[in-house]
């Protein structure tokens, strides 16, 4: 692990077959709802509130899409890590 200050955002690729569908979005929203400050998901120039399933769905992330997960408060590093892990792990599908 790097010793430098971890970044406030992480770029990840959607790997699960079905992309960010309702169930996977619900898993992200569940984590994001526990954050101290806002958590955002960015796809290109579109941005969604990670605590809203609907907002995540409107990003239309298919398999292979690159997204950036962004937090606003350092206290939410664990949430950033957990969401990253969830996405990279294909939501356990």
């Amino acid at each position, binding site marked *: 692990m790097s010793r430098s200050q971890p970044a406030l955002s992480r770029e990840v690729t959607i790997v699960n077959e079905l992309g960010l*569908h309702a169930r996977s979005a619900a898993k992200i929203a569940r*984590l994001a709802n526990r954050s101290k400050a806002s958590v955002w998901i960015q796809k290109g120039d579109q941005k969604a509130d990670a605590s809203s399933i609907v907002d995540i769905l409107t990003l239309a992330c298919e398999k292979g899409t690159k997204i950036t997960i962004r937090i606003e408060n350092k206290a939410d590093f664990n949430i950033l890590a957990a969401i990253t892990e969830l996405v990279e792990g294909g939501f356990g599908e």
Partner: protein
Amino acid sequence: METEAQEIIIKGINASPGICIGKAYLVDRQGVEVVPKYRIQDKELSNEVKRFKAAVKNAKDELRKIVEKSPEELQHAHILETHMALLKDKMLYGRTIETVKQESVNAEWALKKVVSNLIEVFQTMTDPYLKERSADVVQVADSIMHNLVGTKKVNIAAIDKRVILVAQDLTPAETSQINLERVMGFITDRGGKASHTGIIARSLEIPAVVGLKNATASIRSDDLIIVDGNSGTVIIRPAEDNLVRYEERKIDYEEYKAVITSESKAPAESADGVRLAVMGNIELPEEVFALLNYGGDGIGLYRTEFQYFNRADFPDEDELFNKYKDVVEVMHPKPVTIRTLDINGDKALNNQFSAEEANPALGLRAIRYCLKKPQVFKDQLRAILRAAAFGNTRILFPMISTYFEICEATRILDEAAESLEKDGLPYNRDIEIGAMIEVPSAVIMADVIAENVDFFSIGTNDLIQYALAIDRGNEQVAHLFQPLDPAIIRMLKHVADVAREKDIKIFMCGEMAGTPHHIPLLLGIGMDELSMNPQTIPDIKRVIRSLNVADTRSFMKEVLKQTTAKSTFELIKDTYGDILAEQLYSG
């Protein structure tokens, strides 16, 4: 010709194959489409918001009741829980309340406006699966709307005859209330192949045509209809000639299906008479029927994680036992290989470890997790031993990486058996025990681990990941994930040789086992059993029947001389290309 003028033929999307002819049963949603708009006085706005919140709460309670009432429908329960979360979603719930306040309008109108805007966004999407997810949002909004306007829902639980269900769209909540034995087919206005209705129909193996747009407008309850799920055609009030034609087609199709099935139900015997068990991997008890239909000789891998997800507590022993018993009883005398919990931090309940593990693949998962949580482990082992009293059961321990772990696992299994003895509950301890071989250290120590088990089952997905140090989810290196890498083949060969020497059985349950062009190699190595996704079973059986095991053994000698994955693949293609032609060039 006058009477035939009534016949209407409409085309939709063929979501599930098969043909059925029968009476229509219309599931309508009247009263929801017409939404009134009226102005709310400023001083009444907070009451209007309250009315909306109450409707959401009622919708939530309704959903919760359905979730609680449908323990058998695990797949539904999952979708329903997503719906529960959607009910309180900012973009739906929050925006509707904002709209009521900002525009001083009634809640029905505000909700409809918010949902219409969302649907527009979804309609611009190109991915069909994601596009269809707007259906989830619409269904959730509908259930709130029902509670706002107070329309009564059609009670589909009360259907008491064999019918063809006709609906605009079926929500998971609705389908979970249907007595599915009464349904011979589905027709819906909305939806595509990946819709919920399509999934249910395919798992029940009954025909479905979806995306018909206005079927509900042209069909009345009790109309005679023909559903052709092969071509996506629906014929309403068919004329006699069509009725006769489709009766014949229906018989033809059923015969064709019977041939395919009977062929796949026959054992897989090689050209020189060697029999190989071709098994299926399952995750849900509901998958058992499809597995048997595809001709599975048993369950080579029953993943048990599902019952542990998305809940606040661990499932209790009885709950687990009932599920395992269902599967074991239906499959008997065919074997059911139950893999003990292969959970890792991020999948575990409450996500209590998720944020802390930087490297979950190398972290606290599977047997490591179970040995750290002996009570959780023991509950599951007791449930398995009890189910074993009802049919042919095996236990498979995942992710064994040391001899110590398999010793501990068997010790706790013995304790579980002793405690059942004390409690006077029926159980069966005399069952086969296996170790998953998916960590390189277990490959090296296979001869030692073999002393404690009756079989090995090679999990190729993880073995390849760990042996080649490749994370398949990382696109920079994903192409290096090569089942045919000589290192992997030598490992497989080693494990199989040890198994033979120690006189225990050798199985494989990873994706490698379900890939036709790997089969000559796996036969040559001497696998006793292969387990795969149920739908690939017929194909793998077909490949096995066309091979000669004696030939594959000498072929293996050539394979072991190869130095790269590419040359191994070329060798397979050159030797067995004719048999495997379809797969090699399409895949």
